[in-house]
């Protein structure tokens, strides 16, 4: 992905907007915007797993939970946020390897079942191990960190830290995708057997893409805990993991900005429309089915799908004249 001038200008404009806009927002608006960024980080990771490597991972919310609980527990024990976050990321990466290894040896879609089961197991752990996770009551009063002696307790300073980390995480992903690694991931998704015959070690690469995706969720979870100040098992359940996957697909899997759009539709809007959340999700779920029939490439593929459709139609209408 080489950046065109237009692309760079749009990106700069978006970042400026994201810097200036929040100063005009009230508390809840700012909270939603920060939450959106946190989800974007997690979805960036899942997009690598799903969109670029073609694996179906269904425990992304669970990985986010590992990140959130790790940071919350370590911070309660007096460890600094800036030390706890790397621990959370590494832990998620390790769990990714552990779960991914047996499943990926067999068949790509076995990962879907393995991760779904893993998410269930995680929920049982979060609920049952009260001594560590506080059970269903969760962990309360998670403080926001300091940076260079400057408190991030305020909503705006914390937002800027999350924004900076989102940009860094996005840049790291873009870099990874442009490297030979990223190309290997795409080769795997498009034709695993051919990739293998050209010397790509399938198991190692699929496993890595899954574990790196998990690490991104770990970072998102680490930011989620101090953002909401309170964590409990509910947000990390299977339902949200399914939503994570769908938001990557809806935005356009394998498209860099897909998660940005997808997370707004699948996680931010339901949060905003709290009073009608379940109806919204019902419509959303059925809409995904319709979308997979008409627009399997996701919303960001509208243009190409339309062009392809027109090209096909042109071919059809041109044919009788040629005959």
């Amino acid at each position, binding site marked *: 992905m080489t950046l065109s001038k237009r692309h760079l200008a749009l990106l700069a404009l978006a970042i400026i907007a994201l810097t200036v806009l929040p100063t005009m927002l009230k508390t809840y608006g700012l909270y939603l915007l920060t939450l959106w960024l946190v989800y974007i980080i997690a979805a960036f990771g899942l997009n690598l797993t799903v969109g670029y490597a073609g694996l179906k991972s269904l425990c992304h919310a669970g990985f986010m939970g590992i990140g959130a609980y790790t940071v919350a527990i370590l911070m309660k024990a007096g460890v600094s946020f800036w030390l706890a976050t790397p621990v959370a990321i590494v832990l998620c990466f390790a769990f990714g390897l552990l779960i991914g290894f047996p499943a990926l040896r067999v068949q790509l879609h076995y990962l879907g*079942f393995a991760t779904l089961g893993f998410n269930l*197991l995680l929920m*049982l752990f979060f609920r049952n191990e009260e001594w560590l996770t506080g059970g269903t009551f969760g962990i309360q009063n998670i403080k926001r960190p300091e940076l260079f002696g400057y408190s991030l307790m305020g909503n705006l300073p914390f937002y800027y830290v999350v924004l900076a980390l989102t940009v860094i995480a996005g840049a790291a992903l873009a870099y990874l995708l442009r490297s030979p690694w990223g190309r290997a991931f795409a080769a795997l998704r498009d034709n695993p057997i051919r990739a293998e015959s050209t010397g790509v070690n399938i198991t190692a690469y699929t496993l890595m893409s899954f574990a790196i995706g998990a690490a991104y969720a770990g970072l998102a979870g680490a930011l989620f805990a101090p953002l909401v100040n309170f964590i409990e098992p509910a947000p990390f359940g299977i339902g949200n993991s399914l939503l994570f996957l769908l938001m990557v697909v809806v935005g356009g899997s394998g498209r860099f900005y897909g998660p940005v759009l997808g997370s707004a539709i699948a996680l931010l809007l339901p949060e905003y429309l709290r009073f009608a959340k379940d109806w919204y999700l019902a419509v959303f779920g059925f809409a*995904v089915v319709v979308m997979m029939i008409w627009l399997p490439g996701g919303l960001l593929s509208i243009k190409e799908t339309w062009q392809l459709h027109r090209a096909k139609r042109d071919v059809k209408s041109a044919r009788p004249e040629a005959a």
Partner: protein
Amino acid sequence: MTDFFQLLISGIATGSIYAMAALGFTLLWQAAGTINFAQGEFVMLPAFAMLIGIAAGLPLWLAFVVAVAISVLVLGAGFKRLVVDPMRGSGVVAVVVATLGLSIGLKSFVKAGYSAEPHPFPSVFSEEVFKLAGVTISYSDVGALVFAGLMVLGLQMLLNKTITGRAMQAVAQNTFAAEALGINVKRMILYTFGINAILVAVTALLITPTYLAKFDMGDNIGLKAFFAAIIGGFNNSRGALLGGVLVGVLENLAGAYLTPSYKDGVALVLFLAVILVKPDGLLGTPQERKV
């Protein structure tokens, strides 16, 4: 030791219920290449259909018959016509994502439109128990076992002894060859979806008294069904039966002797262990990869 036998029997009973959902899941995969991630929700919907029927004054058996009919119409033919057929040719992954969307849609629809609370569900069999050689056995366990056993046996008979059943198997094994032999492939696939719809309705009838009717009850049941299917062997319908019973028995034993809190995690551990040793499941045969 009597405890052990009690756990074993109730485990087999629960396991045979999982096996039915797993069997439907396997049949869909074999005949139509459809991995149905909404299988759990397919069990949840008939349960609510029966609840609505009972609330309308129907006796349980009549509510069940109505639920089966609706299930065959909606979850069988409707699911095939509206979701699976239009996606023919777009690959397994698109169907997986669509059924995930369907799963969220159905769950949220029931939660928003009916209720978010768990609802008690009447049991078909009496709750009483009897003693046999010192072992306490409940009628509902025996009932579930007999009911599920008859379903599976009947299905095996249908698949192996009737011409229609053999045609269905032929379609599952090799669609092209079946078509060349003059088998009406489309019709056979439609039958398979119908059978799955009946299986999920029976599963709902038997499992809901213990699980309670709740919008997200399918998460757990669906997961057990997937695991049971893979543990037994994805491409073998007897495998689903073995896998279901194994999961049911082992989680019962683990719940009693190890830890009750992690009972629901047993299926995952068993699944991971089996695919490490036998990637195609206990009764499965190796599948070739297609370029």
